[in-house]
C-alpha cells in the first residue's frame, strides 16, 4: 500500500500534474474530486454533478460533499508538500458552512499551518465563482509518517 502511494505521489510530482494524486481513489471519481495546478498553486476541484445535490428546491450542494472536498484538498496538499509514505489519516475535521453551494464547480485550497513529526494541521477553504466569498472552510488534523521513518 505504501509503495502504491509513494509511486502515485512521485508520478504526480515528476509530471508536475497533481491529477495523479486523486486518480487512484475510487471515491474521488464518484464525487468528481480532483487536484490541479493553477498558476503554480495546488487546488482541489469538485466538478458539479447531480449526485452532489442535497437540496433540489434551491438547488444546493449537500453539506457532506463540501466536507469531502475540503478534507480531500487538505490531503492532496500534504501529499504534494510533505514527504509521507502513507496516506495521511484524518484525526478530526471541523467544517463551517458559510454560504449555500450552488450547482456549479467548486474549488478549494488547503494550507498546512503546522507540519510536525506525527501531525499535520491544515486549513482549507472552498469557493465557487468568487474566491473572496468562500462557501465553506475547514480545519483538520492528520496523522502522517515522514518518509525517513518506518511506517509502523
Amino acid at each position, binding site marked *: 500500500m505504501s509503495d502504491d502511494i509513494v509511486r502515485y505521489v512521485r508520478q504526480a510530482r515528476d509530471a508536475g500534474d497533481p491529477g495523479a494524486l486523486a486518480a487512484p481513489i475510487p471515491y474521488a*471519481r464518484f464525487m468528481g474530486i480532483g487536484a490541479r495546478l493553477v498558476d503554480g498553486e495546488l487546488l482541489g476541484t469538485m466538478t458539479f454533478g447531480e449526485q452532489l445535490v442535497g437540496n*433540489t428546491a434551491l438547488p444546493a450542494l449537500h453539506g457532506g460533499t463540501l466536507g*469531502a472536498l475540503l478534507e480531500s484538498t487538505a490531503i492532496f496538499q500534504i501529499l504534494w508538500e510533505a514527504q509521507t509514505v502513507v496516506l495521511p489519516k484524518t484525526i478530526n475535521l471541523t467544517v463551517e458552512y458559510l454560504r449555500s453551494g450552488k450547482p456549479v464547480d467548486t474549488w478549494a485550497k488547503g494550507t498546512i499551518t503546522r507540519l510536525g513529526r506525527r501531525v499535520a494541521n491544515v486549513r482549507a477553504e472552498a469557493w465557487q465563482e468568487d474566491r473572496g466569498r468562500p462557501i465553506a472552510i475547514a480545519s483538520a488534523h492528520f496523522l502522517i509518517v515522514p518518509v525517513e521513518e518506518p511506517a509502523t
Partner: protein
Amino acid sequence: MSDSDPNDRAAVVTRLAELNRTFSQVVPHNRALGLEMVELTDSAARVRLPWRADLVGNPATGVLHGGVITALMDACCGAAVFMALPRPRPIATLDLRIDYLMPAAPHEVVLARAECYKVTRNVAFVRGVAYHDDESRLIASAAGAFMLGTKRGSRRSEAAGE
C-alpha cells in the same frame, strides 16, 4: 412524542413518512451514497450505509473515504434536528466536527445515530456517532450546530445578508 392525541399521532406519522421519503428519495446525494433511514424518534435518527467499492478512499485497504462518513453524519444529524423541531422549519448546517476513531471495516455496513439534545429559538445542537454492529465499535463521533428557520433552507442566509 406523546401518543395521547390521535390527531397528533397521525400528524407525526405523516411527517415521518414525508421525512423518510425526502431523505432517501428527494435528496440526490443521500440516494447516490445509498443512505437508508432506518429509525426516527422524538429527536433522534438512525441511518444505514452499505459498503460500496466506489466509495472507497484507499484502494489498498478498501476503507471508506472520510468524506462518506462526513456526509452520513451531516445527513443523520440534520434528520435528528428535524425530528426535534415542534413544527417543520428549514434548517442549515452551521458547523460540523467529526472525530475519526477507527477506519470503517471494508465490506461492512456502517450505521449512524444522531440525537438533537438542545433546541433554542435560532439554533439546534446535535451529536452523533458512526459505528459497526453495535455502538461498541465506533468509527466516528460528530458534533454540530444547525441554524433554524433559514430562508428557503439556504445556508447562513441571514448572516450573509443574502
